C-alpha cells in the first residue's frame, strides 16, 4: 500500500466462537495476519458446549477439530485466550483495542500433563458446564480444549493448593504472580464475533428458574446430554439424578417479548426439537411436551420439524405458560391456558427446559467510530459499508451456526477490503 494506506494490516477478531474462528481462518488463509482474541481459556465459545447440531445431529467438535487443525498449521493467526475486550476505538486502518488480560496462572510452558490437577483439592463450579457440576480449580477447560493448556482458578490463591500446585508442575508452567492487566492491541480492521449469552432466566420471574434445580435453560440441557457433561450424557433431573422422562420444553423464554428480548432468537425452536430427540432417544417411555407460540423452522428446516413431529411421544401445545414453579412434591409444575382449546392446564414434569433466547455479548463492550449497536446490543457495520469494523455471528444478529459461519466468511472479506487488499 502507498503511504496513505492503513497503519496496520492486521485484522483483529474479537471472540473465538465458531463465527470468530471461521472469520480468523478465512482471512488468514487468504493471506492476512489475524489476532484472534478470546476471553475464555479455550476457543469454541458456545458451540463447543453443545452436544449436537440441528438438523444433522452431528457434533460441533467435529467441525471445530478441522478448524483447530487449520489453526495449528497457520502461523498467520495469533490466538490470545483470556483476553476480555473492553473497548474498541480508532478508525479504519488504525484501531486500538483495549482488553483485560485475565490471569491464567499457567504459562505457555504447560504441557497439559495434569499433575497440577491431581494435587489440587479446591473445587469450583465448572464454568464449562455452566456451573452444573464441580471441577478442580486447576483443570484442562475440557477434553477438546484448544489450546490444550491448563487453567487455574484464583480460588486456590492463599490456600495450601497454591504451594502444592506450584510444586507439582515440573515444567515451570505455573505462575501465581500473574495479575490482571490492561493491554492494548492495534489492528487495521476489527471483526466483532462476540457471540451471545443465554437470556438471564431469573428475570422471567413467574418461571422460578432459580427456585428449582429441575427448571433449567436450553444451554444447560446441552450439557446434560453431552458425553463430557456433568451427567456423562444422561438426561436426568439435576435435583436427584433420576431419569428425566417427562420433560417440558418452554419456547420463547425471553424472546418475542418486548419486556425482555423483542426479537425471535431463531435457534430455540430447532434446539428444543433437538432436545426432544435427546430425551426420546434415551427413554423409550419418554413424554415430551413442547409449549410454543410458533414452531419456527427457518430456511429449509421444516423437514427437520416434521421428522421429529411424527414421534407419538412428543406433544406440541400452543401456549405460552403463565407460570412454572416447584410443586408440592418438588417436581416443577407448568401452568397456563392452551391457546387452541382455551383449556387450563397444570402439569408436573421431571424436568422443565426454558428455551432462553440469545442476548448479544457485545452489549458489554464499548464501541465507537464506524460501527453502531442497535437497541438490543447487536453490532452493525455503518450503513455505507466503508468502515473497518464489521460483525458476524450472533454479534450481528440472532443467527444459527450456519449463518454464523457464513457471516464469518463474509466478514473476513470486508475486513480484508478495509486493511487494503493486496
Amino acid at each position, binding site marked *: 500500500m502507498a503511504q496513505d494506506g492503513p497503519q496496520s494490516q492486521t485484522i483483529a477478531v474479537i471472540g473465538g466462537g465458531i463465527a470468530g474462528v471461521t472469520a480468523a481462518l*478465512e482471512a488468514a488463509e487468504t493471506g492476512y495476519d489475524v489476532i484472534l482474541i478470546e476471553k475464555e481459556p479455550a476457543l469454541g465459545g458456545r458451540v463447543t458446549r453443545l452436544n449436537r447440531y440441528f438438523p444433522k445431529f452431528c457434533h460441533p467438535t467435529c467441525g471445530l477439530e478441522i478448524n483447530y487443525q487449520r489453526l495449528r498449521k497457520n502461523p498467520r493467526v495469533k490466538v490470545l485466550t483470556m483476553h476480555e475486550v473492553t473497548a474498541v476505538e480508532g478508525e479504519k486502518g488504525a484501531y486500538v483495542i483495549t482488553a483485560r488480560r485475565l490471569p491464567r496462572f499457567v504459562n505457555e510452558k504447560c504441557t497439559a*500433563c495434569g499433575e497440577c490437577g491431581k494435587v489440587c483439592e479446591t473445587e469450583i463450579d465448572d464454568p464449562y458446564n455452566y456451573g452444573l457440576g464441580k471441577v478442580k480449580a486447576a483443570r484442562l477447560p475440557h477434553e477438546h480444549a484448544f489450546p490444550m493448556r491448563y487453567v487455574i482458578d484464583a480460588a486456590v490463591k492463599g490456600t495450601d493448593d497454591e504451594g502444592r500446585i506450584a510444586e507439582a508442575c515440573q515444567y515451570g508452567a505455573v505462575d501465581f504472580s500473574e495479575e490482571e492487566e490492561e493491554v492494548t492491541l492495534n489492528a487495521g480492521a476489527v471483526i466483532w464475533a462476540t457471540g451471545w449469552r443465554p437470556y438471564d432466566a431469573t428475570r422471567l420471574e413467574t418461571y422460578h428458574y432459580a427456585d428449582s434445580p429441575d427448571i433449567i435453560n436450553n444451554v444447560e440441557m446441552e450439557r446434560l446430554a453431552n458425553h463430557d457433561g456433568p451427567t456423562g450424557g444422561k438426561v436426568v433431573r439435576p435435583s436427584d439424578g433420576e431419569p428425566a422422562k417427562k420433560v417440558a420444553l418452554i419456547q420463547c423464554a425471553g424472546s418475542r417479548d418486548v419486556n425482555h428480548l423483542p426479537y425471535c432468537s431463531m435457534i430455540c425452536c430447532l434446539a428444543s426439537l433437538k432436545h426432544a430427540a435427546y430425551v426420546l432417544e434415551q427413554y423409550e417411555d419418554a413424554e415430551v411436551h413442547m409449549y410454543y407460540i410458533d414452531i419456527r423452522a427457518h430456511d429449509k428446516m*421444516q423437514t427437520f420439524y416434521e421428522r421429529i413431529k411424527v414421534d407419538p411421544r412428543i406433544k406440541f401445545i400452543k401456549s405460552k405458560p403463565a407460570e412454572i414453579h416447584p410443586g408440592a412434591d418438588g417436581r416443577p409444575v407448568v401452568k397456563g391456558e392452551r391457546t387452541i382449546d382455551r383449556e387450563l392446564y397444570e402439569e408436573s414434569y421431571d424436568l422443565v427446559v426454558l428455551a432462553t433466547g440469545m442476548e448479544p455479548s457485545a452489549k458489554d463492550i464499548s464501541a465507537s467510530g464506524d460501527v453502531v449497536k442497535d437497541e438490543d446490543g447487536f453490532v452493525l457495520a455503518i450503513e455505507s459499508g466503508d468502515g473497518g469494523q464489521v460483525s458476524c455471528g450472533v454479534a450481528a444478529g440472532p443467527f444459527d451456526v450456519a449463518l454464523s459461519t457464513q*457471516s464469518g466468511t463474509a466478514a473476513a472479506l470486508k475486513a480484508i477490503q478495509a486493511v487494503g487488499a493486496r
Partner: protein
Amino acid sequence: MADETKIGIYLCEGCGIAEAIDMDELEQTVSSEYQVSTCKRHAAFCSEEGVAVIEKDVKDGEANRVVVAACSHRVMTDRFNFDGAATVRANLREQIAWTQAPQDEDTNMFAADNVRMALAQARNTDNPEGHENVVKSEKLLVVGGGVAGLTAALEAARAGTEVTVVEKTGQLGGWTRKWSRLIPSRPPYRGLIANNTEELIKAVEDNGKIKVVTNAIVARTEGMPGDFTVTIDHGGSEETDTFGAIVVATGWRMPDDMTPYEKYGLGKVDGVMSGVDFEEVLAAGVEKDGKKLNTIAIVIPCESEQMPYTSGVADRIAIKQAIQVMDTNPDAMVYVLHDNLRAHGQAEELYREAQDKGVVFMKAMVKSAAAGPELTTDDLLLGQEVRLSGLDAVVVMTGMMPNSTNPDLPKAEKGNEFLCDDVNPRVPITVNGEDAGDGDAARAAPSDADDEGAGVAPADCDPENPPLPGGALLNLQYRQGPHIPILYNGFIDSHYICFPYETRRTGIYVCGAVRKPMTAHEADNDATGAALKGIQAINLVKESRATHPRTGDLSYPIFGLDICTKCRRCTVECPFGAIDENEEGYPQLNPSRCRRCGTCMGACPVRTISFKNYSPNMVSEMIEAVEQPDPFDEKPRIMVFACENDAYPALDMAGVNRREINKYMRFIPVRCLGSVTLVWVSNALEKGFDGVMLMGCKSGDDYQCHFVKGSAIAQERIGKVEETLKNLMLEPERVTIEEVSIADSKRVVDLLGKFGDQIEEIGLNPFKGF
C-alpha cells in the same frame, strides 16, 4: 533435501511417559533394531531447551527426518516443526502413558511398536513440495446476475479482483429488481425500505474491474482452479476466457411442479396468484387490471413433503407484502393464513408492524379454494371451519426451487445421475451414534468401475427423487459429469453447517438461493463470503496448496502410470471429481481440484498412487514394523486404521480422560477412511495381525465425512473383504468397520474392548509366526 536419509529420534520422558514406559528398554529397541543417526532423551522435548536440541541436530545435518516420540500429533504442532526435516510423531502420551498400566510388559511392547511404526513412517516420508504452478488466471467468474451474483462481483472487485459476470437474461438484477419494496435489514427493523437493486447494478456496471456479459450462458468449463477455461455462449457466438475460480449465483425459480399449489386455487381459480405475481400488483399500487384490491388473503403453505421448496422465506415475504398493502391502502383487509408463522430473527419486529397496521393473522389451514375467489379453511385457533369470501385476491407463497440446473437447457446426456440426492432428511433419526442401517454404504459408492464410460453408477439414485431436469450450469468437462453435486431438494452444498460454501467441485463456490432459500438481504451477505472463498482458492492454488479441509497442504497424489491398469477406480471414486482420463484411458490428475484425501490411493488396486508423505508403501511398512509376539505368548495384535479427523481425536480424548484402551491395539491415523486400501487390510492379516478395525465417520444420509464419501466408500470396499479373508482361510469377523464420531471418547474404548474380546474368542491368526 539430503540424499541420505538421516533419522533423529527423540524420546520424550515428560507428562508421565517415563513413569509408564521403560525408557531404557525403548532406547534399546531403537538402537538394536534401527540404524538411526541419533537417539536422544529429554524430560520435555516441547520445552525451549528440548526443541533446541532437535533444532541443533537438524541444523548440524545430524537429522533430516525427525521422529518425536512424545505426545499426539494433534498437540505441540507448531513447536515440533523443523525447517528442512520431515517430522513424524509417535504417540506415547495420549495413546499409551495415559491409557495403559504403567511399567507393564504390554505397555512397553505398545510403546516399542509405536516407535517402530514412526520409524517406518519416517523412512518412507518426505516433505511435500507442491505440484507445478497451474495458475493461469486470477480472475473470478460469477454465474448469475441477480443480487447474489452482483454482490459477489462487486465485493470481489473491491478487494482488487477482476470479475466477469455472466447473466442468462438481458437484464441484471434478477428477481429482486422486480420487487418494489424490501424487508428492512437495519434498525428499527420495521418500515419497508426502497429497492436499491438499480444502484447495485450501476455500481457493478461502473466498476472498471467488472465485465458484464448478458444474454449469455456458460457453454463449457474445462480445467481446474487457477485455470478454468470457460466458454461463454453469448447469443450463439462463443467466447473463451480463463478464470481462477467460479462463484455460482444462479438463484431460484418457481417450482417446476406447481400442482401441489392447486389446492389453494393457484392456476385453477381466477384471482388466485403466486407471491411472485402479486409483487407486480403491489408495484402497481395494489391494483390489478385497473381495479383496486382491498380484501386479500395471503396463504403460506408449509408442508415440506408436499411442497419441498417451502421455506421460512415465504413467511417473511408474506408479512412484507401484507404491510405493503396496508401502507398503500390503510383501509384494506389482509389475512395472512399460516400454520407456524416463521418470522424469525428481527422479522419479529416486522410481524409486530403488520399487526399494528391491522393485518389479520390466522392460524388456519386451507382446505379448498373456489371461485370468487374464496377459501375454506380450518381455523386452528377457533377450532372450526372458517370461510373467507368476498376476496379480491388470494396470494399463494410458492416455494423457491434452486437453479442448480439450467431449465432452459436439455438434460445433460452424461453425468446427470450425479445430481441424485445423496442426503435424505427424511430417514429415521438416529442420534445415538449407531449406524443407521446397512443400506447406506451400498447406496453411496459405485460398485463397479469397469462399466465402460458410464460415469458413476447411479446406485444412490432415489427413484422418488429423480435427478432434476435441465442442463448443467457450468457444463463441467469432468470425467464425473457436467454437474455440481447437490444435496437434498437440489441445493448445491456439501457441509451446510460448518463450511457452508464448500461444494464437491473445488474452486467453485455457491451463494444465494441456489445454496439455500434466502431473502435478498441474506443473499447479499452470503455473496460476500462466496467472493472471499473464490479469492482464497486462487491464492492457495498459486502456492500449490490444498483448499478445504486440508487447507494449505502441499502434498498431492502422484500416479505411477507404468503399472496402472486403467481400471478407473480412482477417477470414479474421487469425491471431488478431481481426476479425469486422458485419451489413452490413464488417470489424469487436475492437481488444484484435488483435496488430498487419498481416496484415489485407497481405490487403486495396484498401489501406484501415492503422496510424498502418505503412501501405500509407507503404511504397509508401518504395519510390518509392528512386532508380532510369539503365538505361545497369546498376545493378539489388532490393527486400527483411524480417521485423523474424528476417530483419532476421540482416541486422544480417551487418553486425556485417562480411560484404559485395550492393550493389544495398534493405531495408524489415516487422512480419511477413503484412503484405506484393502491391501493394508490383507497385509496386516498376512503379517500376523489377529484383527483389523477401520474407524471412520458417519456415512450415507447426513454423512459426517469431511471428504463427503470417504467413509461410505470404505464400507463398500470392506464389504468385499470377506472374499479375501476366505482366500486366506480366515474368519470374516476378524475385520470390522465402525462409525465413530469425535464425541465418542468413551465409546471408542468400549468398541475396542469388545473387538479385542471378540478376537481373543476367535483365537490367534494362524499366520502368526510365519
